């Protein structure tokens, strides 16, 4: 049997290296702790850990000259390589800031990148720092008004291998300041390279600074400061301080409709949260590197409050239209951040969606594929013509007439009805409220009936019948307005236990356990006909509407023998919870991620 004990038994075998103990105790006693400079953001660097085990003994730090003029490789050096092909010669002649940026995207996608980044950066020479083990050297900066990539080399001076490099991680950090804001490096690493090969004796590394200020880097008298962080240095050492004046191409922010309702969904806890809705992103700019979004500034009671999160494992596409022939092309966004900055009573929300490959804006219009109907009337439901990816890019608000189960709550203390999720959960964040708004939109199509009675809200009381049975029916009755959104409902009560109806077995468990149900198990993908249910403890009956294609009404009924249900006491009595997952599916019917989870919390008399 594959049981949890097997995991525990295996984990028992994982032992901490005893040699670490003395090292930690010594460092603690000496209070000689390397902690890298942190950005003050949620997702700031966590490299400090990698530094802790570094050799903190002797060593020296050399800070070489900096800011020397660009010196492309000497022609004689290139010519001496008689094996070089013409193509290689051409590549070698590229400025470093072009070459490294292309290398970055090539590594990112696995496909050669020949985008011409000329004019988007400058090279550096001689800006370096080193100790007796490592040398870090700034090579180039590439970017635009809204994002900067800086490229540097890390050279192992004593033949250290990749693991040692990872362990100590000598690196460069950067920040841009001016105009009352400072934008710190947001992330860094080596340019992805599966082989971790040294090139000319060094690993090619990069860092990135995203503009979170709302004022452009190159047109606002800003300065970029690059610091070196090498293992023997307790603090990052300034290596270069450069005025940002070397990129002339502008990508001004616009308030035109199209992308100005951008938000991003992240999965936190029980479902997707939408970030970027309150306040809304009202301004944006499209650049070859990605898209930047800003909200209007807003008043806040906070003097200093900064936070951001990255896009995590999610990715999505943004579609652009070819200027030449009007055809569409999709650019993948697999990386980005969204957050807010608040200072002295004023805040701004921002997001940067990094393209997986650079976009030539001379060939593609920055006009989005996103339907503008939502931008113009954001309070209404999304248009039926949305693409399968648009649920990432268009906010959906609950219509006023939606009988939303999560909005229709009762105060647990006095039983009074309350109207908003903020009333029920006073400490919910804006993002969490946005999640409930998302739930509200779709919950209009779902009914939960117990013993024939439709439930309206959480905390509602239910009673078993005379046989101590609960007859539960979920009904999903989408209308035409959601037909093309390809949303499927997936009723997945907790499949934790072998016995499908054992409940509350462990402390804190309050999720009803019913035999798991999978939509795909019951509907033939070719004929769209219901397959007789095979799970013995679930009675499922669906009535696909052949005219509704992927959006079929469904009913799913189960009988719960309450004598088998071990309810956990809550302050108001015995509580029963149903979880219902909603998925977005593509037209082939394959499942995508759960876009939100609906929860029914019921009290059992």
């Amino acid at each position, binding site marked *: *049997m*594959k*049981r*949890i*004990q*097997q*995991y*525990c*038994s*295996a*984990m028992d*075998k*994982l032992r*901490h*290296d005893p040699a*670490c*103990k003395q*090292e*930690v*105790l010594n460092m*603690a*006693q000496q*209070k000689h*702790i390397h902690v890298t400079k942190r950005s003050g953001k949620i*997702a*700031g*660097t*966590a490299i400090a*850990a*990698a530094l*802790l*085990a570094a050799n903190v003994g002797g060593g020296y730090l050399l800070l070489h000259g900096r800011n020397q003029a660009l010196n492309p490789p000497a022609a004689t050096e290139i010519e001496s390589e008689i094996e070089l092909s013409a193509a290689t010669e051409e590549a070698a002649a590229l400025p470093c800031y072009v070459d490294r940026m292309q290398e970055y995207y090539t590594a990112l996608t696995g496909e050669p990148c020949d985008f011409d980044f000329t004019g988007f950066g400058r090279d550096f020479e001689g800006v370096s720092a080193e100790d007796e083990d490592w040398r870090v050297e700034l090579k180039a900066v590439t970017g635009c008004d809204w994002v900067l990539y800086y490229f540097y080399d890390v050279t192992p001076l004593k033949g250290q291998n990749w*693991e040692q490099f*990872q*362990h100590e*991680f000598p690196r460069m950090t950067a920040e841009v300041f001016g105009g009352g804001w400072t934008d710190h490096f*947001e*992330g*860094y*690493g*080596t340019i*992805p390279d599966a082989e971790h090969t040294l090139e000319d004796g060094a690993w090619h590394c990069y860092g990135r600074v995203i503009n979170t200020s709302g004022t452009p880097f190159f047109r606002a008298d800003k300065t970029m400061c690059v610091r070196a962080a090498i293992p023997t240095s307790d603090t990052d050492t300034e290596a270069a301080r450069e005025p940002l004046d070397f990129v002339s191409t502008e990508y001004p922010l616009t308030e035109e409709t199209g992308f100005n309702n951008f938000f991003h969904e992240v999965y936190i*806890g*029980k*479902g997707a949260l939408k970030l970027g809705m309150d306040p809304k992103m009202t301004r944006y700019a499209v650049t070859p590197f990605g898209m930047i979004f800003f909200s209007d500034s807003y008043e806040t009671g906070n003097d200093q409050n900064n936070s951001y*999160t*990255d896009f995590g494992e999610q990715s999505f596409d943004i579609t652009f239209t070819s200027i030449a022939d009007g055809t569409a092309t999709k650019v993948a966004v697999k990386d980005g951040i969204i957050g807010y900055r608040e200072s002295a009573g004023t805040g701004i929300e921002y997001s940067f969606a990094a393209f997986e490959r650079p976009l030539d804006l001379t060939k593609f219009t920055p006009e989005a594929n996103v339907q503008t109907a939502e931008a113009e009337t954001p309070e209404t439901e999304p248009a039926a013509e949305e693409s399968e990816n648009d649920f990432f890019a268009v906010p959906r608000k609950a219509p006023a007439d939606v009988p939303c189960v999560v909005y229709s709550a009762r105060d647990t203390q006095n039983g009074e009805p309350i109207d908003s999720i903020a009333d029920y959960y006073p400490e919910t964040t804006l993002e969490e409220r946005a999640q409930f708004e998302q739930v509200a939109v779709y919950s209009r199509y779902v009914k939960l009936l117990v013993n024939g009675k439709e439930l309206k809200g959480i905390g509602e009381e239910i009673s078993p019948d005379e046989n101590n049975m609960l007859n539960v029916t979920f009904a999903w009755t989408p209308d035409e307005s959601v037909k093309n959104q390809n949303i499927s409902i997936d009723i*997945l009560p*907790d*499949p*934790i*236990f*072998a016995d499908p109806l054992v409940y509350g*077995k462990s*402390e*804190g*468990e309050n*999720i009803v356990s019913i035999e*798991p149900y999978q939509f795909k198990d019951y509907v033939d993908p070719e004929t769209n006909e219901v397959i007789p249910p095979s799970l013995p403890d679930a009675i499922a009956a669906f009535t696909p509407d052949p005219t509704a294609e992927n959006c079929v009404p469904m009913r799913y009924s189960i009988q719960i023998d309450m004598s088998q249900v071990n309810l956990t006491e809550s302050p108001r009595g015995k509580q029963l919870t149903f*979880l219902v997952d909603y998925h977005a599916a593509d037209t082939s019917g394959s499942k995508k991620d759960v876009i939100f989870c609906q929860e029914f919390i019921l009290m059992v008399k």
Partner: protein
Amino acid sequence: MEQIYDKYHESVYRLAYAYTKNRADAEDLTSEVFLKRFTCGKSFESESHETAWIMRVTINLAKDLLRSFRYRFTVPLEDANIIFESPEESEVWHAVMNLPAKYRSVIHLYYYEGYSVTEIAKMNGKSETAIQTQLYRARKLLKHALGEEFTDEKNSAILQRNG
């Protein structure tokens, strides 16, 4: 300091590993956790408070690491080099390790460390419902991966380990 280290270091290390799936990172995280503990100047009301603080710091540092670009782009996956007693044990281990970090961590805390949902919620700064949901999803994924129930025998597992 030594007593504190001896008492918690294996738990911290294993939790860090559950997040990072990488011995070197787990060791570094463990070191940082104890350096924070030894230099924070805190005194705790009780052992349980200290435990909660240490585990929470571990979680926070691990999450920071997972968010970092350095980790996402440079840290290779490694095997723990554990000698498994059976193919099933190996299969279960890898099924857990292949879960998304937030799920394998909650599985680890709940089943291996034996914390309650309430305690895990406090450590993570999340609601109990959120943790329950994560457990629910984790078990769902495990069932999918293993092809059968990831049997909930928390108490017996803990008792078995405690001998």
